[in-house]
């Protein structure tokens, strides 16, 4: 069983929801990525999503665009992301790491070489924003065979046929993009998400995480009430951006506040959305 499956099984047994934070590798500085990953775990992360910076992040809003630009300006690369994961694994054997990024850095390394190197470094899953199921039949197969869960997105525009497509190609969990837009948008419609998650979960037979637009304990709790996992990205990047010098401590504290809100749900004390 993969590390990702293990996490979801354990959480499900406890009636808890997964908290999946996202940070851009190399932001605000390459040497801070490892301490930030550890702080995310200390603050209650169940899975860490590590953004692989790309020069042309088409699906990202201004916050993650800026983070990617700063990371690249400091020499971050896919190879260095893998080194960072290897360093993380030296002290953490349990928390799954999912790489999130765009196709071209993987294409440049070569799909097979990437899968082998990522698995060897201790990566558990990979989410390639611009590899829809149609375009990565062989990549998804290579990833699965090489011990990586290929994770796919579903969107508010996705119909039932798409559910089936990602169910076939993907493993680990499904990432439901909560709104039409780029990362960091603030148009989250919780009722709409609540309406769609049950049908998606039933169709894909995997845990469903929800991301894009989750910014605080309240929105995390309301999404956590319906989804299996809550993904927070831009809001964490903002926490890093606005607290130079104190990033690690601030991210840990922010994570604790979200963790507490999600665990309150499990204890049945959650605000009824």
């Amino acid at each position: 069983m993969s590390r990702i499956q293990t996490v979801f099984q354990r959480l499900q047994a406890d009636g808890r929801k997964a908290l999946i934070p996202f940070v851009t590798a190399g932001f605000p500085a390459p040497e801070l990525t490892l301490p930030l990953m550890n702080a995310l775990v200390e603050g209650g992360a169940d899975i860490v999503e590590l953004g692989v910076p790309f020069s042309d992040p088409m699906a990202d809003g201004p916050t993650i665009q800026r983070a990617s630009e700063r990371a690249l300006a400091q020499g971050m690369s896919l190879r260095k992301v893998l080194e960072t994961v290897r360093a993380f694994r030296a002290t953490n054997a349990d928390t799954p790491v999912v790489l999130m990024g765009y196709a071209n850095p993987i294409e440049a390394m070569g799909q097979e070489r990437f899968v082998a190197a990522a698995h060897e470094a201790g990566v558990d899953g990979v989410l390639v924003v611009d590899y829809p199921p149609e375009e990565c039949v062989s990549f998804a197969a290579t990833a699965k065979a090489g011990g990586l869960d290929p994770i796919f997105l579903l969107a508010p525009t996705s119909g039932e046929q798409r559910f089936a497509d990602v169910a076939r190609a993907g493993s680990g969990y499904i990432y439901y993009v909560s709104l039409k837009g780029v990362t960091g948008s603030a148009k989250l419609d919780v009722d709409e998400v609540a309406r769609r998650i049950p049908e998606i979960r039933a169709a894909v037979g995997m845990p469903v995480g929800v991301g894009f637009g989750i910014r605080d304990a309240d929105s995390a709790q309301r999404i956590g009430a319906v989804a299996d996992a809550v993904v927070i990205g831009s809001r964490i990047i903002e926490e890093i951006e606005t607290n130079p010098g104190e990033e690690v401590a601030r991210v840990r504290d922010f994570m604790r506040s979200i963790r507490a809100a999600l665990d309150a749900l499990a204890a049945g004390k959650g605000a009824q959305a």
Partner: protein
Amino acid sequence: MQMADTPYQFPDASGHFGPYGGIFVAETLMPALAELREAYAACQNDPEFIAEFEYELKHYVGRPSPIYHARRWSEILGGAQIYLKREDLNHTGAHKVNNCIGQAMVARRMGKPRVIAETGAGQHGVATATVAARYGMECVVYMGSEDVKRQAANVYRMKLLGATVVPVESGSKTLKDALNEAMRDWVTNVADTFYIIGTVAGPHPYPMMVRDFQSVIGKECLEQMPDMVGRQPDYVLACVGGGSNAMGIFHPYIGVPGVKLVGVEAAGDGLDTGRHSASLTAGRPGVLHGNRTYLLQDEDGQIIETHSVSAGLDYPGVGPEHAWLKDTARAEYVGITDAEALEAFHKLCRLEGIIPALESSHALAYAAKLAPTLPKDKILLVNLSGRGDKDMHTVAERSGLQF
């Protein structure tokens, strides 16, 4: 609008030209692209759509565009005869408008009241704004903030036509970043918005659809050349940025034996300087902007900044069909430097009384290299994709002048 009489049948049903092309976009856009594929397929088979498109091209754009024999220039070069396909005479001054009309008509049939576009030099932005005004559609054009500065006159033209021009501050602040931002707008407003892509790039069906609309250029040539000279040309040349004017003139000739197709990329300061935009000549295959194609990228797969004196060629990718034509050797791709393009620009001004676009000047410059190596009875057909009015500023500056 496919050629029925040739075995060349690309792209395949999933939008691939061999290993190139495809649909590499985020999930949110997949249904929108499926909807577009269906809508476009319906238009292709609708005689009313085709008739309306032809009417617009004739009465609004001024087609067919003539072919002109550049006699003096050919004589001075002392070799093959150079003929120019005069896309510079189109309304708005370039080939771009052919495609904008086609896509705006599809948008109308899909009931989308808002169109968006990316632009580099501003030519595609102006053509989109023009057509949006003509059809009463809301129009937003994304343009890198560097290009907004370099192309102030075209920014003003777009505003006169009622478009909103949004300067893009991310990345290298040029065409590729404008394309990223237009994609972000589309993801966000996908329900009421149609994205009019300006070249034969982007996710399927764009490379095919833009090619089909631009193919009017080559189809006219197929008829005009026999009328004029009694036969088809020996070479067809065109500049390649994203590749739409080249694809438009190449595609109808793909199945015609004996016609060599030559695409001319911007070699900028020279291919060995690293400051150029020659994706096919100097790039490697990768994935960007929704398709797999040749890209200018570093070892890590990051897209690198490009350079060309002509903003319209300043793009790190190229349409996937050109990648396929290169690999299959049906077309050949070469580079022309800024200096060579400028020389051809001045030659055409002085010898033929035609001020060409700097983009088109790249194709002219290669014709000027090729012609003297060939006998006088050979024929080169060059796609003169646009006129140079927009480039006055750049050329003057290069000559040490200020307006």
